[in-house]
């Protein structure tokens, strides 16, 4: 079963076609890699899925329903969340507050309940607290609990973005260059983490990355974009061996040292 389907999607910016007639499917519970040269349109695809940009042509289906024209928050509540390439945390809030805020959809008490601070409020708040704690632990952020987000090192900020996204219990998670700014060792840990959260939360994941170890290591399927068009798609091995991909993106293999 497919969780996400792109049908002939196009997005133009003035004269520039950032995404041109792209179709692909993401299978449920899989990790789907999205690669391509800089400016190929990868982030734009995320912006289209999450409703930040409106599609020019075509249709996007999520769990077999069109999400065309939905507001970003609706799409998020429907089960798609993401991280940002240019980190967008709640900069002045702490790690814990960032996550706790994002947990809001797990509770449904109203404004009247907050005024009364009744049992419903207390129970649900306690639940949110536990959930936030749990997420911090899973992502290894517990020791940074009270640090203001903008003061976290780059790598931690990326983790926090993932934690914040997970707080919504999404069924589809979009990661935009999660390993950017991490060293190889940290990247490996991140790979493990991504695999772990996939199984733990029963997620499907689409990931954009330029770290080929990560992409080749964890993706079930990979699509390559070039100049807004689909260049190739397939499993890791097929992609690596595809001459067009090597030419446009990977480059020729260097000799080992």
């Amino acid at each position, binding site marked *: 079963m497919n969780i996400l389907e792109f049908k002939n999607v196009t997005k133009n*910016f003035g004269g520039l076609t950032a995404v041109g007639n792209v179709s692909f499917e993401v299978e449920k519970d899989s990790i789907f890699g999205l*690669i*391509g*040269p*800089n*400016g*190929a349109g*990868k*982030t734009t695809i995320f912006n289209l899925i999450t409703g930040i940009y409106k599609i020019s042509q075509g249709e996007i289906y999520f769990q077999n329903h069109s999400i065309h024209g939905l507001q970003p928050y609706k799409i998020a509540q429907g089960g798609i969340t993401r991280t940002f*390439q*240019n980190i967008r945390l709640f900069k002045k809030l702490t790690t814990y507050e960032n996550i706790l805020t994002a947990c809001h959809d797990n509770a449904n008490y109203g404004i009247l309940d907050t005024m009364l601070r009744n049992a419903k409020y207390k129970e649900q708040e306690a639940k949110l607290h536990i959930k936030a704690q749990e997420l911090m632990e899973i992502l290894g952020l517990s020791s940074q609990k009270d640090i203001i987000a903008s*003061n*976290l*090192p*780059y*790598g*931690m900020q990326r983790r926090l973005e993932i934690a914040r996204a997970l707080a919504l219990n999404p069924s589809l998670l979009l990661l935009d*260059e999660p390993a*950017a*700014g*991490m*060293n*190889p*060792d*940290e*990247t*490996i840990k991140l790979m493990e983490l991504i695999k772990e959260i996939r199984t733990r939360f029963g997620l499907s994941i689409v990931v954009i990355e*330029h*770290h*080929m*170890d990560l992409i*080749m290591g964890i993706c079930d399927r990979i699509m390559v974009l070039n100049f807004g068009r689909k260049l190739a798609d397939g499993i890791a091995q097929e992609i690596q061996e595809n001459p067009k991909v090597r030419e*446009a*993106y*990977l*480059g020729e*293999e*260097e000799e*080992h*040292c």
Partner: protein
Amino acid sequence: MLKVENLHVYYGGIHALRGVDVDIEQGQIVSIIGANGAGKSTLLNAITGMIQFKEGQILFKGQSLSQIPHKIVAAGISQVPEGRLIFANLTVKDNLMMGAYLRKDKSGVQKDLKKVYELFPRMAERIDQIAGTLSGGEQQMLAIGRGLMSSPELILLDEPSLGLAPLLVKTIFEIIKDIKNMNKTILLVEQNAYKALSIADKAYVLEQGRIVKAGTGNELIKDPSIREAYLGKNQKYSESNS
């Protein structure tokens, strides 16, 4: 050429650099590697005056360096900052011209502009695009190009390969070597430790605000503890492609 001595930097209560010594010689590539939060960017920012430091000193060509950013640039040091800090509201061209803000030699500027366009043909295609709408990697190219435009004697690069496609990462390292060949000096901070070490004349390892190791690039690559911590095991692509 640049000498950092016993540098201490604090962010309020956080002691981010705890007595760092770095020595860079004319014409060298010096790399600094270290985990997230080790203080690499802090070091670069302290050199360019973006962060004030209280203790220690920085000597540039034997003279104590001012702590005022524009004077530091005028002295011949430029930085390609982490997170790019491009001018999102200006066009690509204006961004590049801002890089050459202090330069008076018009013909030299034009020549360098041409060179940047050669290095990054994408920039040439997008001369009039508002920089904020560039893709992440395109912005990174712009930031590097802008750094080159000031034609500095010493250029500080903070994770220049961040967010770049594998092919481009290669290009970037070629460029770094080119810059060196122009007899310029480079201080490089990179997560891609393997590459950073392999082109470095000298390298430092920064951990929790302290220099814990120093040596030539090759020495460090071979150091097993470094391999363990920064180069990753069984990493195919990090050692070869990207």
